[in-house]
């Protein structure tokens, strides 16, 4: 560029390396060019330091290229923002899916728990709830075919008795599973008799050697 040449010319002028004609030419120019005149006076004061000028040019170039970098950095940031947004969305979706799966699982778990309760804990009233036979203690023996079948059996074979009553019977189980040593702990006598009859004519028992069973007549 010309400015290199120009600054060299100023340098040469200040060092007295130009011919008188060239010096006159430069002085003449400076006389009509206040910019050049001031610059010449400045360099007269400090001397021409081309190293500093090169550094200045470098600074200018850095400044010029600084903005596009900033732009690209901004662009990159917006890209990253986009990626982050998508990641967030995916994360939320995954969370929702997990939650849904969990909810379903816990539903079925609850159902399972319910089923377990039905199987192991007190049997629900059978049919319209007229007859209920259930064990009163955890250690009690249970009918071999299960409480449901036992209640079905009761329903089929019961001799209806008028009135309401709750009978509690305790009994032992023999080797083949038949109840014996039946003792009534609670209940009216016709109901106890009927309950005993049902027990004696009923299915075999298992799980334990003794039982405590409640019969609800309604």
């Amino acid at each position, binding site marked *: 560029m010309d400015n290199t040449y120009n600054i060299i010319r100023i340098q040469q002028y200040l060092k007295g390396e130009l011919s008188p004609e060239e010096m006159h030419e430069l002085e003449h120019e400076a006389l009509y060019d206040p910019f050049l005149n*001031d610059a010449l006076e*400045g360099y007269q004061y*400090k001397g021409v330091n081309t190293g500093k000028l090169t550094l200045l040019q470098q600074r200018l170039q850095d400044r010029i290229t600084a903005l596009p970098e900033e732009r690209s950095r901004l662009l990159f940031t917006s890209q990253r923002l986009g990626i982050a947004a998508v990641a967030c969305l995916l994360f939320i979706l995954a969370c929702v899916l997990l939650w849904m799966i969990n909810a379903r699982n816990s539903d079925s778990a609850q159902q399972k728990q319910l089923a377990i309760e039905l199987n192991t804990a007190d049997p629900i009233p059978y049919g319209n709830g007229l007859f209920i036979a259930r064990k009163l203690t955890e250690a009690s023996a249970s009918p071999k075919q299960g409480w449901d079948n036992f209640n079905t059996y009761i329903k089929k074979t019961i001799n209806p008795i008028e009135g309401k009553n709750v009978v509690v019977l305790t009994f032992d189980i023999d080797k083949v599973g038949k109840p014996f040593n039946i003792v009534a702990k609670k209940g009216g006598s016709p109901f106890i008799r009927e309950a005993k009859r049902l027990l004696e004519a009923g299915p075999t028992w298992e799980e334990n050697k003794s039982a405590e069973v409640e019969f609800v007549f309604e």
Partner: protein
Amino acid sequence: MAFIKPIDKQKEADLLLQYKSTGSLKILGMLYEPYMPLVYGVCLKYLKDESESEDAVMHIFEQLVTKLRVHSVVNFKSWLYSLARNYCLMELRNHNKADTISIDENSFMENDAFLHQPIGEDILETKLRLMEECMEHLNAEQQICVRLFYLEQKCYKDITTITGYDLNSVKSYIQNGKRNLKICMEKSGNG
């Protein structure tokens, strides 16, 4: 003739327009870079400190970034000179260094319009005669220095050798002589 011919005037005007519309720093850099040594020199003159001047060169560029988008600049070089000079003077004022600086120092500067006024052949002779007359009105020192500089095209150094005046005096005799000559010729020309 002009000392700095980094890019021709037309190209410079195009770049100015381009920068105004695009705000591209690359274009502004192309405009500014050729003048950077001059700006640095001007800053050295006023601030008298290299690192301050370096910073000033960059600060002036920052001012260009905003100002050139707003102002319509016809003559970039002289506009830039004013900007740089004002920046330095403001800096000095902020540093309370301004005491030693005379703002009128450069009042001798002519504008391009007068200097490059085309002179027709028929009036050239009248002008020359007028100039000779006006030369007589200058004081002795100014007369000698102006003659040596303009008519004999001597450099300052040679003039100091011939006259024995010191360099700064020679400069100021030429500058003042030139100004007085101009005033005289304008007066006589109009009268």
